[in-house]
């Protein structure tokens, strides 16, 4: 069977070689990189612009961004017909291609996040490693911990006030460099689509900017969601562990912090959400107004075949409802959870409508292609290019985040600075 034939249904006049070649994994790719970039921008709001209220969220977002970073290239690997040749991109990058820069942009960004994390948690590493070093009879686990944290210090044990001050400066600089790099990382994912001149729906210079805005929206939303979930878990844990007197105090304390952080973060979410919607609508209006050759077929897709996906699922449920939820006064945690879930869904649908929607019509402009996502996997292809593959990618960051939070404690304020 030809690649793509399994999930493509052709209607009217479509060229014989046309199939939906870029399927659900290519929807996941910009979605995941978007989360990476968004989470990083959120953490930078505190480090660069000194928005004090986001202190707690900043550390959390940075670690989460790092966890997401490892997942971001996975959809591409699963999508490649020859995944083991993926390394060719690093060996013979062909720089006229937008994808060729992936290796460079991605590694640069990874290096920035890793160094920022190091400066942020250096003190913590030293504080863990030093007592273990002095301890005489270490158990196996302690040895392991000792080795991990010893190597993480990179041999630097100087945690004097002066050096810590310098660390903070380094973090600020790294975060400042990181913002444009994060935007580039994702803007360039938009460029991959926006520069395909053969695809009438994708080709617009607005694409990278739209991608960046929706990326920040989704990144902030996911950070808020994960933050709420972990805070709720902490509340639950603290209510089980502590004596009745201590517990109520600590639980209230935690809840207070949680609501505060969420309220502030929600403001930034709203700001970027409005920007993203504005740009997307501008693109739509511009296409309708200029009405070039491809408009007839694009209109029939946008207002006809994909109406539910675009106007109901993406704009109404994904944008309008969360906009109202966050704008209503007196934001509660429950409403915030509902809001961010809708936002995440909306951004996912936006990616879907770009990637799948862009292939919903034929290059002939006289035919259509329908995508049927493989639900039940029965071979490797239907697994990786189906619902199961997409879900594995979506869930992958969470266990990674859990492992990373063992090394970079996201809540222990004493451990870092």
């Amino acid at each position, binding site marked *: 069977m030809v690649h793509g*034939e399994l999930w493509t249904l052709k209607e009217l006049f479509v060229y014989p070689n046309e199939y939906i070649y870029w399927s659900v994994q290519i929807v996941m790719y910009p979605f995941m990189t978007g989360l990476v970039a968004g989470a990083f921008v959120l953490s930078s709001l505190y480090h660069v612009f000194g928005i004090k209220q986001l202190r707690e969220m900043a550390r959390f977002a940075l670690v989460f961004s790092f966890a997401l970073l490892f997942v971001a290239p996975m959809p591409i690997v699963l999508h490649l017909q020859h995944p083991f*040749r993926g390394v060719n991109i690093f*060996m013979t990058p062909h720089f*006229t291609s937008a*994808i060729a820069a992936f290796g460079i942009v991605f590694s640069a960004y990874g290096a920035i996040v890793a160094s920022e994390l190091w400066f942020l948690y250096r003190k913590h590493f030293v504080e863990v490693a030093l007592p273990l070093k002095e301890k005489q009879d270490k158990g196996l686990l302690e040895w392991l911990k000792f080795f991990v944290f010893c190597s993480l210090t990179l041999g630097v044990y100087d945690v004097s006030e002066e050096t810590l001050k310098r660390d903070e400066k380094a973090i600020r600089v790294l975060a400042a460099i990181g913002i444009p790099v994060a935007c580039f990382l994702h803007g360039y994912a938009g460029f991959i689509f926006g*520069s395909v001149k053969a695809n009438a729906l994708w080709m617009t210079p607005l694409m990278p900017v739209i991608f960046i805005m929706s990326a920040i929206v989704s990144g902030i939303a996911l950070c808020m969601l994960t933050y709420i979930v972990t805070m709720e878990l902490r509340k639950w844990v603290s209510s089980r562990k502590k004596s009745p007197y201590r517990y109520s105090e600590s639980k209230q304390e935690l809840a207070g912090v949680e609501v505060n952080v969420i309220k502030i973060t929600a403001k930034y979410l709203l700001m970027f959400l409005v920007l993203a919607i504005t740009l997307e609508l501008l693109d739509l209006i511009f296409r309708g107004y200029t009405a070039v050759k491809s408009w007839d077929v694009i209109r029939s897709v946008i207002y006809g075949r994909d109406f539910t996906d675009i106007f109901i699922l993406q704009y109404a449920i994904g944008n309008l409802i969360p906009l109202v939820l966050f704008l209503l006064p007196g934001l509660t945690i429950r409403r915030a959870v509902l809001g961010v879930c809708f936002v995440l869904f909306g951004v996912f649908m936006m990616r879907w409508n770009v990637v799948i929607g862009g292939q919903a019509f*034929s290059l002939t402009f006289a035919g259509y292609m329908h995508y049927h996502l493989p639900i039940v996997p029965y071979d490797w292809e239907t697994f990786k290019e189906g619902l199961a593959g997409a879900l594995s990618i979506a869930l992958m960051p969470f266990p990674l985040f859990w492992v990373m939070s063992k090394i970079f404690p996201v809540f222990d304020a004493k451990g870092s600075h």
Partner: protein
Amino acid sequence: MINRRDFLKFTVKGIAGVALPLAAFEIVNPRKLFADKSDTSRVRYVFLIDTYKCVGCGMCVKACKLENEIPYDANVTRTWVERYVITKDGKTFADTPKGARDGFTTSRIDLGMGKFQDIKNEDIDKAFFVPKLCNQCENPPCVQVCPVGATYQAPDGVVMVDRDWCIGCGYCIMGCPYGVRFFHPVYHTAEKCNFCYHRITKGLKTACVDVCPFGARQIGNIKDPNDPVTKIIMTERVGILKEEYGTKPQAFYIGLDREVK
């Protein structure tokens, strides 16, 4: 602790130490390699299709599949023939069942999803066939977007794919406005028409040109003024497909209609 001076010194030494051995490597340009083998710059292959002569028999598609080892029953093909039927009420119908591998055996138009459209002969204004293949563009978007340089253009204009280097990302397939590219069902790499490069470089014609009973397809060298194909392109009125993409296609058509997609 290391001071700034030492740090800079070490950094410079380190970079120099790494850069020197790296400088021994040369990034090999496939174009250059190709040019070293033979001087083909005096050749620029072009294709000429006379749509008036095509009857839609599909021999070219069959021959191409066999010659280039594209699985016969796979629903992909390097070349295909399209049928256009324009009715008196101004509607345009087009189809290419199985790329017209078996020709057009019925007058019903294939609408896809198992539906067919009957058109009465008296309702037809005009109808014709258009063979399609890779345009071997002068400005090929597929070559531009390949992230690893696995697809490249030879100096004689033919665009080819390196099956050993293609990673199978599909970017070139998305980048081609003509839909000539696909994934090879066996090799799982990008695949396309290369004007039967193994034949034309030996002085033979492409399989489709050879097999066409009506002479609808011709291949020539536009740099040779005495080539019959060149003469036709230079003296007669020929059209190209999808000019608006700026790809500068090198497959020329006689009798192109505005309805051709």
